């Protein structure tokens, strides 16, 4: 085995890393704080002057410091974006945005239902299961895209800008 390691190392050197393509996580993590820019909350729920948007990761966190870095770089009309990580829906009332992912697909569904009725922009990832938040990440032709459920967002008093809607792979429109 020891003898094999140099061979392996030589092998790696022969190839060299492919040009750094971002991971799906890195792109999703960059999108998340930006969503705050393209959504509007009911008047009572907009962050007060100088206070940040609260971006919650509920359940599993697939992003780690990718998300912290992306959130730190975001300034939206004088509001920063603060990342909070929550094990479950408890304490989520203060979240403006929530990326929701359970340990298993069914758990994601439970978390989403527990958040139902609150003005929180919920976001999910198709790779974790079919359960969908208002924004549902998917991979189309090697790119990170998303579906938007505008109708559900509207029911909770959230409005989503047409610029974001225009990027969506599909939109569930308000009736």
């Amino acid at each position, binding site marked *: *085995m020891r003898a*094999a*390691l140099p*061979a*392996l190392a*030589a*092998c*790696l050197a*022969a*190839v*060299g*890393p*492919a*040009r*750094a*393509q*971002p*991971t*799906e*996580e890195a*792109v999703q993590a960059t*999108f998340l*704080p930006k969503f705050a820019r393209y959504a509007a909350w009911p008047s009572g729920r907009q962050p007060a002057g100088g206070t940040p948007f609260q971006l919650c990761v509920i359940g599993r966190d697939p992003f780690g410091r990718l998300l912290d*870095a*992306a959130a730190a*770089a*975001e300034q939206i009309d004088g509001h920063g974006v603060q990342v909070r990580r929550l094990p479950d*829906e408890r304490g989520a009332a203060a979240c403006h945005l929530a990326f929701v*992912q*359970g*340990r298993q697909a*069914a758990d994601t*569904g*439970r*978390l989403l*239902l*527990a958040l139902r009725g609150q003005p929180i922009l919920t976001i999910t990832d198709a790779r*974790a299961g*079919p*359960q*969908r938040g208002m924004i*549902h990440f*998917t*991979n*189309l*032709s*090697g*790119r*990170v895209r998303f*579906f938007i459920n505008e*109708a*559900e967002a509207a029911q909770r008093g959230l409005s989503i800008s047409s*610029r974001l809607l225009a*990027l969506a*792979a*599909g*939109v*569930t*429109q308000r*009736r």
Partner: protein
Amino acid sequence: MKRRRLVPCLIGGVAAAFCAAPARAQAPMPAPVSEPDDLSGLSIEDLAQLMVRSASKRDEPLSAAPTSLFVLTHGDIVDAAATSLPEVLRLAPNLGVQQITAHDYAITARGSNGIAASNKLLVLVDGRSIYSTLHSGVFWDTQTPFLEDIEQIEVISGPGGTLYGPNAVNGVISIVSRDARDTQGGLIRAAAGAYEQDVGARYGFALGGGNAMRIYGHAFNRGNLPANGGATDDDGYRGWQAGFRADLGDATDQITLQGDIFDNEVDTRPEDGNRGHNLLARWSHAFDADRALRVQAYYDDYRRRFSLVSDSLQTMDLDVQYNARFGAHDLVFGGGVRTTRDAVINNQNPLQLDPPRRRLWVYNAFVQDRVRLSDSLSLIGGLKVEETSFTGIELLPNLRLAWQPNERHLLWAAVSRAVRTPSRVDRQLQSPGMLLPGDDFVSETLIAFEAGYRGQPTARTTLSVSVFYNLYDDLRTFEYADGVGLPIQLRNGLEGHSWGVEAGSSTQLMPWWRLNLGLATLFKDFREKPGHVDLSFKDAAGHDPEVQLFARSALDLTDRLRINAGLRFIGRIGGTNPVGSYVEADAAITYRLTERLDVYASGLNLLHAAHLESSDAGTAQLAQRSLQLGARVRF
């Protein structure tokens, strides 16, 4: 350029990794994963145009299911060289896959492989059971899905536990197709080689209100496989399959409607081939965060013609499942009823089913509770009650313990009882003077003891290891009815045990290189019970290798070039018709010519012009090398 040095290098690297695998958990990685560039300066429009590296397994949530489970993802399936569902299943190290003819395979988990013996597997396609009530096996040539539309394939080795349907004795294969909302737009794939050609297309579109639908169709042609010594079987195979899937609803109510239709022919005799169709509806309703109901119904109809035998089967099935969570309990209960009507006309030989047409019923009810004993420890107890037209009530209990100290590690242990209830052949196949019907044939039983680990021992490695000890009783034997001469009768004269280890790992060695390793061993000891003499030489125990080893490498060499290659070692199959051990390889090289167009070259069974996989001397042909050039267009 670099590629010329790469090939010998990779072979060495794969071999080295095999040796190094057990020690890798402690060994430092050769080089750090490079961090992606800062993306936050990009606009959302730019972000949406960025090509992303395919996701690695390490980022997937660890399934908390305390079973021996391997998941083949959409990416695994599309990137591999496999051109058919059985070839895709070779990616799961816990399955034994033997190609028999151009159209037929024998597939099992944990042994009992062979044309007749591989009858202890439950295979589901989007919740629709596809094993045949004729002989409890799967006719793989009636399953020709469009591979690009598969979301994932879960392969469970061992009894499926409470929540899966009948026949989940040695394992469960659950094939799940993609949500129609995730397959919008068009896709055309065409591939051709000397042995095999395939063309298919899918188009997905929005139905409004967040609902979506897709339609697909594909056609294929496969040539004759080389004969195994004797006369050629003329097993060339061609056909088509088409279908649709619609997904409707919101977070509270989800409705799926789907259906397929297929027709194919085999060259062996005129009119040989299969055709069929199916239709499925599933409704899931969430009452609140803790209570959900799922109702599913399907209809499936197929007809097979082979060698002057005609076999048709219509199935109707209704399943209801209710989930409730309260306190420390996660409760699931439900039930189902399935009825089948078959017709088997045999003009080839005197063996007949009596009656030739028969309606059968299977009823089942189940309850399972997952109790959290502490933050990390859960106990799962389940009981299924099953009754069929041929048996009384069968009790199928299972008990599982799962210890998950954190998100990265899961240790589990389980004991379960499973049965294969008698098939039509077991009970009602007969031939005057030669074969008496097996009126007293009862269920074959298994008590399985299992334990395993699944987790991420390092940030870049996922690992799954399980061990099992299977105790079988009442397996099928062919015996002289009066002990000395014809007629023969099918009886439950075999007992025995088997044990083994299954392991699979996936390591992201480099951001652009993933290496998967797999291992399955199987040892068995079967004997005739006192007073029984088996004329089939313990066929029910199966024809299995003791060892299978797998290595698979996925390389993203540049933004555009991806190479996926696999190597498998399948040990010798002993018995009256031994099959030698073999090493085989497959590879697919995909080049992204433009954003919408991929071209690829792929090959199966690269190392030999032809090799034998099945010990079924009368039927088995040689699996052969198959090369293809193909293209995939998205619009």
